[in-house]
């Protein structure tokens, strides 16, 4: 009995201390995350426009779904949920996220496995691999835009010289290749990030397991499948979630690299367009809110399906 009270008093003290230390972070989090998020959700239920935000009036779900009666017995549904352009951008975003994250995971894994080996100049190569990740996205997007330019671009020039193509390709302009161009740039840029996270996971694997496996004469592919992969899986999954979150918010590469068309417009581009270019701040807020919900939904589903260990209980 006495033991329990002592423990609870101690844990109470610890709990108080924990909250005390947490509170500055929570306040900051509220100011920079929760408050703007709440504002956005609120604006999505109003008729706000960018330069008249203070005059916003509550309009309910009209930005999401609304039936407009034309007065002549005819009518039609309007709103984000019936907007073909919105659904097209949702599809673009999800497709982009799935393809880019898949490629980045595989490439990242390969690079991480190579970098995990001992070889001369390894630290230099590790640093060099990070360069694409270190360049600001907007800069690398512009850089690639020039490299992919149909007339002056180095890519077309190289391919022409090598005889791979017979005519210059308008990489970023043509609807058929614009999304591919975005994928190329994103994979180039973000694979190092994946490699780094996976490499960190690889280095946690104790070396004596491998020694034992070698002594037993187990083939390398089997070691990889039965030892390496399961042990680094948690790291890979964390990396995938991080990347997927980022990929679903993709904006800058699309915006800089490609023309503003249905072929590449993502949810973020759609939201920005309505928020700032058009006089529809509320509609853009609704799009942002749905974007937030989509990301939240996908993340939660992913964490539940893969039974990711967020609490660190199994560690």
């Amino acid at each position: 009995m006495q033991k329990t009270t002592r423990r609870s008093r101690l844990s109470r003290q610890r709990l108080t201390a924990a909250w005390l230390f947490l509170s500055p972070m929570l306040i900051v989090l509220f100011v920079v995350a929760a408050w703007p998020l709440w504002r956005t959700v609120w604006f999505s239920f109003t008729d706000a426009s960018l330069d008249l935000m203070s005059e916003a009036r509550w309009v309910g779900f009209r930005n999401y779904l609304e039936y407009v009666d034309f007065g002549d017995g005819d009518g039609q549904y309007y709103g984000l949920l019936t907007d073909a352009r919105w659904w097209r951008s949702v599809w673009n975003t999800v497709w982009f996220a799935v393809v880019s994250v898949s490629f980045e995971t595989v490439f990242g894994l390969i690079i991480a496995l190579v970098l995990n080996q001992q070889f001369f100049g390894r630290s230099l190569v590790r640093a060099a691999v990070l360069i694409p990740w270190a360049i600001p996205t907007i800069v690398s997007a512009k850089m690639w835009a020039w490299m992919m330019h149909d007339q002056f671009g180095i890519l077309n020039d190289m391919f022409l010289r090598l005889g791979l193509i017979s005519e210059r390709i308008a990489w970023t302009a043509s609807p058929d290749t614009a999304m591919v161009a975005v994928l190329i740039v994103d994979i180039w840029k973000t694979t190092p990030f994946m490699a780094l996270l996976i490499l960190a996971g690889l280095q946690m694997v104790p070396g004596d397991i491998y020694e034992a496996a070698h002594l037993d004469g187990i083939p390398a592919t089997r070691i990889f499948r039965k030892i390496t992969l399961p042990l680094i899986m948690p790291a890979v999954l964390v990396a995938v979630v991080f990347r997927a979150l980022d990929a679903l918010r993709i904006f800058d590469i699309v915006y800089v690299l490609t023309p503003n068309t249905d072929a590449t417009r993502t949810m973020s581009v759609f939201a920005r367009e309505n928020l700032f270019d058009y006089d529809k701040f509320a509609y853009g807020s609704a799009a942002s809110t749905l974007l937030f919900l989509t990301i939240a939904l996908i993340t939660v589903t992913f964490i539940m399906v893969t039974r990711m260990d967020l609490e660190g209980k199994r560690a």
Partner: protein
Amino acid sequence: MTRLPKILACAAATAFMATGAVAADLSIVHGSVGRDQEVLRSQLDKFEAETGNKVTIVSMPESTTDQFGQYKLWLAAQSSDIDVYRLDVIWAPQLAQHFVDLKPHVDDIIEDFVPAAIESQTVDGKLVALPMFLGAPALYYRTDLLEKYGEKVPATWQELTDTAKKIMEEERATGNSDMYGFVFQGAAYEGLTCDAQEWVHSSGGGRIVELDGSIGINNPKAAAALDLAASWVGGIAPEGVLNYKEEDARGVFQSGKAVFMRNWNYAYALAAGDDSAVKGKFGVAVLPAGEGGESTATLGGWHLGVSKYSEHQEEAIKLVRFLNNYENQKERAIVTSRPPTLNAVYTDAEVGEKQEFIPLWKPVVDNALPRPSAATLRKYNEVSAAFWTAAHDTLSGKAPAAKNLAKLEAELKRLRGSRW
């Protein structure tokens, strides 16, 4: 900065202000194309020397669509960071409430300006911005190539298509494999709205939205014009034109890789420059017309407005007046080939001699077709986006023009609702 010097600086500034002898720090924001920024800077240097004020240029991206988003953010936040904005000709109806009414401040000189320019910047009797320079596109053509193949400057879009095709193919056959027939602004942005409006209107297809707000864009003549334009892409125009803005098109033409180009006046001074591959080998003409239609040029231009949230309005107005005085307009006309907004500059002998383009363009500017920003008010940007989307979908071959225009009509009707 520690506190004491800060306080001292504040006190000093206040003291200066009280005596009225303070030199203000002004900011001017604009998007730079061609040599705009260079010339602006040199004129600002003169202003600084004359008045003791300091002026900083805040530069923006080339795309007017991008600029507008940022401008709206600044204005919505009532930011005093920017004192003078360089505004696109189409923005006045949407931004009027954020700018100082310049009318009382320019009463003495307003008569000297091109009336159409003043009119385009007047909203409910308020002068939102003082016109800085106008824009009306030209057809740039290669005189040497037309001569070589015995062709004349095309008067219709069909003629342009045929001539461009012929010269392009012959040039390529002689080993000039990079040659294209025609370049223009085909990216999905405001520039395409200008280009496509010219194709449609010059073919008798009417305006995007008529002056009275009615929507007649879904008609066979408009569809035919857009379909013809779509046939250019991948043919006489490189496929990359689908992502070309002004400077991309100029890059191709100026490096000698295109027979024809549709571009604004600014490109003339650059293409005629010493580092240009086509120097002395090109001319300009009014844009071609459609069959049985009349040549149409979209009215462009950039104008200077003073932010209502500026803390130095008086100095900012002085700056606007200074940049638009005769001397500076004349310099811009000569150096950047931008059509001036003062009537008198067009007849200036020196301008005519050094930039023969300018006096010729007075009638084009006077008759240029405005975009429907006055009719559609705050919805203009969306109207324009819907229109350029229809045009871009046609150009990229996603669907024939008739289908895209039917979709556009429905979209415009939805946007309009009961009224614009």
